[in-house]
């Protein structure tokens, strides 16, 4: 089979990884006893550049991979990138967002926001109040004329 190799500088949580194509036509042989999600490939010996990500058209999937040289062979141990492989479908998913950079409600309690130990104490006076005081005498009677 022929695979396309890339350099991926994104982690596995990126829906669309940042890929730089290295080689479109790398010959590879699937090692027996592996599966479609974690294939192990034996690569041709004329690799010109490093890579850490591949696309296998036969499987229609993208893979993270580690390449090492063993017994005069380049071996690529791969692990499927389920996000990017199924991006077209994932894009259409309607989900309930727990956290989001774009769709959020800041009035929900967010326990990940760290509060400082010291709060801010401020005061705001009302515009008016008791304006002063005066003497008052109370007596019995008083309507005497």
């Amino acid at each position, binding site marked *: 089979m022929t695979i396309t190799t890339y350099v991926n500088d994104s982690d596995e949580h990126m829906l669309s990884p940042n890929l730089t194509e290295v080689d479109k036509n790398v010959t590879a042989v699937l090692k027996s006893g592996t599966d479609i999600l974690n294939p192990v490939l034996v690569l041709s010996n004329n690799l010109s550049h490093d890579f850490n990500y591949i696309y296998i058209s036969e499987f229609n999937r993208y893979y993270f991979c580690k390449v090492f040289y063993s017994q005069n062979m380049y071996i690529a141990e791969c692990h499927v990138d389920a996000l990017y492989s199924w991006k077209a479908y994932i894009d259409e998913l309607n989900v*309930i967002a727990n956290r989001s950079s*774009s769709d959020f409600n800041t009035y929900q309690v967010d326990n990940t926001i760290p509060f400082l130990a010291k709060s*801010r104490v401020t005061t705001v006076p009302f515009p*008016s109040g008791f304006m002063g005081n005066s003497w008052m005498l109370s*007596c019995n009677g008083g309507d005497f004329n």
Partner: protein
Amino acid sequence: MAYSDLTMQASLTMGFQGSPSIVPTEAIPCTATIGGIGTTLNTFYDPTIIFTSPSTVGDNAGNFTAATFEQVIFKPDVVVNGITKWVIKKYAATTDTHFLMMDDDNNIHYDAAINFLYSAYEQFTVNTDEPPLSYDTSIPIALCIYARPNDLQHYTLAWIMQPTALAETLYNFQYKVTYVDNIGSVPLSTWGTVSGDTPMSFDDYIDATFNGVYDNEGQLAKIGEKGGSTGSNFERPDYEINFPNLLDFSITDTSMISMYSLTPGELKAFANYMWNGNFFSTIQKLWSDPLANIISLQRIPLTAGQLNTVQSNIIIGNCDSLITSKKINKQFYLIDCGRINVKECYKNFADYHTTIAIYLPYCGIVQLNTDDVMNGRIWVKYQVDIFSGSCVAYINCNTNGVWHILSEHAGNCNVQFPITGANYATTYLGAVSAVGALANGSVGGAVSNVLSMKPEYMRSGGVTGTSGMMGVQYPYLIFTTPNYIIAESFRETKGYTSNLSVTIKNASGYLQAIADNSELSGIPCTDTEREMIRSLLADGIYLD
């Protein structure tokens, strides 16, 4: 001066301070001249509906150079002698619209006791006729309107200046309503804008919509920075609970007791009179204990000018002292401490983790429920009984356009001065025994009221009587606001809490989400991959 001839200068300030549904935008000051054009009240209630664009002059009211109508502050720069009424009539499809009548911060307006009246959501009138009855400066009053889109069609706002209750002259202006996006101050919609001063039909307005402001269920979705829903429809009626009326009786009406407001000179003269032979020789004929005719000498927290008085000699029992003073003919008084806007600082949940306390003169410091006041208004009035010294502080809150008295706190604001030794014992030793009762837990009456007002944090002790008079004489709010520092990239890397339904292609940045099986089953992948996708979404993924 004929009010119809008045030329009124009004300053118009846009912006928004109060509602969770519309958040602040940059204020754009502009001025308007309103004057010379009046109509009758009846005409006003059947107005021609005219809408003008922000940059044009079109209605019969005056000139507006730019406007949004979330918040408008009108400052009539005229002397107003009489009653100023603000009347708002709305044209709405439903009755769910909320109004907020707001006034400017810390301004003269607070000295005016404003009755907030409205009926059937159709109109409300603000009387600025108590006290004082006249103003010699501006009365900044702001109107803030927010509503759901189908509710909000058109508002007509006017103010009426009434020299008397019978002659109503109305200054009328009309303007369109615009929602403003909180992000970048970009108008979300300027529906209803028409060019020039072309009238627009009311039906055309009904068809207007606000794209993106509301969720699918018609709930307000513009909360905080962006997104959100207020949850299910909240249909519970909410009625105004206003300040109680001032008690209209007075002990002086009975002729059994008289109260006098004395200057220090009058008090000294009275003391001289009281201890001379004439006084005792007269009074002793009637009473075995002459001083019993003097009920109390008190220092009350009202100035002589605030009291309702008439010139009179001081009379004890039936004995005229011939000392001229002022006889008080009203027992209960209203002290309006004014109103404060309580604004959100952060525009997020942290605002509601703020603790708010209020210091009330003669009552102490009281912890408030943050939900009662945050993003709303708080108004404090006292009713004071100068005879007994009892006072009640009413805390009136308004967070949704309706005023409610949410708490009342009793105190005592008079300082009793002993006239005799026995009087001293009653006044001061009585106070000591009251404190002792407090310590023993056997509290009652006013003391228990004071106890119930104690805040969670002990910020003050008893502030009644003398100690109350030594304290601050105006209420103030004490905010203890949580303080947080958030990384600049927090939103992009961690996102904010959401609980919203999101289509992933429409989202951006960080997303942590729950996808149900029915959604995931549409992906033609293996079960293991499906589980991986579910797990990655739950952990959080980064979108384009």
